[in-house]
């Protein structure tokens, strides 16, 4: 009895979910963003609302907890380029985060021997360039290697970065750097927007950065670059023999992922105001991996959700940290067995113009390949009735711009 019930409920829920995601995929990009605006506004307001049940207080300061989750999400977005899009297993991603944080420290802390104090806004592009270059340096010799060698070499890279932080004198090991630059600006009442004690401003900044990064990532995904990454992931030889310069695009994936990692490092360093060698071990890299895999590799929304879970749940429920690692370790095993695609499956946005193409071909409903649906309900007009009449006739050509 229960069995039949479940089997009835299962498909209908799945169908409803598929219909929603189908409808969503059918919207043009500006429309999608228009729908996102209230969501983003809600997220921005979240720490101010500090709603009960959701809040992590009294254990953890809610804005700080949200800020940490946002940084985690940014990291996951960057790592998703490497793992989810291009299918390269990078286990040393924490190294880029560290390089970003240390770049901020070296360029702004009074403890730095460079003796400069650049403002945060100047540091960000420098840090991104530095991490990008280190991504290229790491990738150039290793991206010719087979996939699993790459994993071990990147792991080694992460360790080397940590060991450098331990052992290189100017990086100050355990003593670390104090007073790292943070963005300026004051609230009307004179208190600084960005401060170590109140993470509200930083959280807002992080959300805005995430939105901007997502926009750029969306551009990449819907281009030759995103297609090249997925082609490499699906079948590297066939990609190369279809004219994709696979090595070059793998390096790009590494560089772009690294740059986002570096960006998140600077953001983190600015909020905490302090960097030392204690946060950059490989275990942290594995947590990043867990976030990406948990949420769904290759799905931006998925990895954000994954990152949020990995960061927020321990704060909310006051896990002992060791259980956190245990739970995520087991989650990885179970997930790979039962849902290897993660909580939200892989999704691609390969063609912007293709959206119009499909629509023209198959009528209004079929705006985008119904990848989640079976072949039987494919785009020939026999689409779910839930698909609302959308903006086929009116949306501008290349509407994703």
């Amino acid at each position, binding site marked *: 009895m229960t069995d039949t019930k479940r089997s009835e409920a299962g498909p209908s829920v799945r169908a409803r979910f598929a219909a929603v995601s189908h409808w969503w995929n059918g919207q043009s990009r500006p429309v999608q963003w228009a729908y996102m605006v209230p969501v983003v506004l809600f997220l921005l307001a979240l720490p101010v609302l500090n709603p009960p049940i959701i809040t992590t207080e009294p254990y953890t300061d809610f804005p700080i907890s949200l800020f940490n989750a946002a940084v985690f999400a940014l990291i996951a977005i960057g790592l998703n380029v490497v793992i989810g899009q291009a299918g390269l297993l990078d286990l040393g991603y924490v190294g880029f985060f560290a390089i970003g944080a240390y770049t901020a420290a070296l360029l702004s802390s009074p403890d730095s021997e460079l003796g400069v104090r650049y403002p945060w806004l100047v540091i960000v592009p420098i840090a991104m360039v530095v991490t990008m270059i280190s991504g290229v340096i790491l990738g150039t010799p290793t991206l010719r290697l087979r996939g699993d060698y790459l994993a071990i070499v990147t792991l080694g890279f992460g360790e080397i970065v940590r060991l450098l932080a331990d052992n290189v004198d100017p990086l100050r090991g355990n003593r670390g750097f104090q007073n790292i630059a943070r963005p300026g600006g004051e609230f009307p009442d004179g208190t600084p927007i960005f401060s170590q004690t109140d993470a509200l401003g930083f959280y807002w900044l992080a959300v805005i950065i995430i939105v901007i990064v997502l926009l750029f990532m969306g551009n990449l995904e*819907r281009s030759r*670059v995103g297609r090249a990454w*997925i082609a490499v992931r699906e079948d590297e030889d066939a990609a190369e023999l*279809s004219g994709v310069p696979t090595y070059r695009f793998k390096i790009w994936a590494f560089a772009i992922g690294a740059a986002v990692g570096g960006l998140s490092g600077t953001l983190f360093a600015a909020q905490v105001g302090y960097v030392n060698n204690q946060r950059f071990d490989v275990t942290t890299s594995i947590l990043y991996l867990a976030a990406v895999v948990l949420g769904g590799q290759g799905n931006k929304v998925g990895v954000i959700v994954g990152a949020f879970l990995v960061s927020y749940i321990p704060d909310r429920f006051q896990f002992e940290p060791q259980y956190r690692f245990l739970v995520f370790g087991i989650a990885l095993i179970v997930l790979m067995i039962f849902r290897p695609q993660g909580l939200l499956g892989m999704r691609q946005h390969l063609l912007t113009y*293709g959206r119009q193409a*499909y629509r023209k071909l198959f009528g209004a409903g079929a705006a985008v390949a119904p990848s989640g649906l079976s072949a039987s309900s494919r*785009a020939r007009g026999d689409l779910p009735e839930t698909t609302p009449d959308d903006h086929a006739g009116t949306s501008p050509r290349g509407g994703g711009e």
Partner: protein
Amino acid sequence: MSAGDDVQRSATPVGATHESTSTSLDVPPSEEGILESLEHMGAAERAEHDAAVSASVAPARDFAVAQGETLLAVDGLTVRFGGLTALDDVSFDVRRGEILGLIGPNGAGKTTCFNIMTGVYRPTSGDVLLEGRSLARMKRYRIIQAGVARTFQNIRLFGAMTALENVVVGTDARHRTSVPGALLRLPRHRREERDAVEKAMALLEFVGIADRAADKATALPYGYQRRLEIARALATEPKLLCLDEPAAGFSASEKDALSELILKIRDDGYTVVIVEHDMRVVLGVTDRLVVLDFGRKIADGLPDEVRRDPAVISAYLGGAVEDAPAGAGEEDA
């Protein structure tokens, strides 16, 4: 520019006929595009539409160069794997505008030959020259850009992508946008993206699977997947298209349809090399045959000559020439 505009101006002939296309070597894909012309298409518009399709499909045809001249030269190709000699001093030419069949028993070295031509393996000695340029040391994606595209014996599509996207990956071989352009959505990138989709749609229509453009490649039936691979290869605008056993697993009617498609591809100005076991397909489409056996070339010539060649008969019939069934050679496929 809005979609409304496009619809009104739809079905304007672009490179209206073959002849007009042939005069220019590099016809840009149509501004108006194929997609628009698909809507509200009457019978009268069909011809124009077809012309637009083929204009989009084969922009790189160069009729200016005489047909029959050497496009690709395989020159003294030798390949050894460990102790095994897969190819032993094989030489032959592929001439512009022809369909060349590469046949021989399994293990004779046909696929190895393909793999050298497309850069999968490097030759032990000898060379492959495309219009005089050596391909032997060229990077694989450069070989594609130089103008050699292929399909695979065991179909290799990008399973996570739709049919259309698979073909668009092929068109990317000719695109110049890289990360910065895509990141900032520069005008050239947007133009390339739009043209790519137009062209990919045209190609899907050309190979006859446009109705499934929005389906995931893995969801397509087997025959569609083979055709999709051909479309993806054509999207790279090759001078030479290499088909590796395209008819494997096809029923008789599917084979006939495939033969038609291959002929259509040739008629559109491409040069084709085909490895195939099915003699009906081979004899039905090829202009010339090269026969490999045990890594060596044993015959090279017109199909009719080759099938009477005693060396070929003996290679296929195991040295027992006198056992060859009488009349097998008279029959035309």
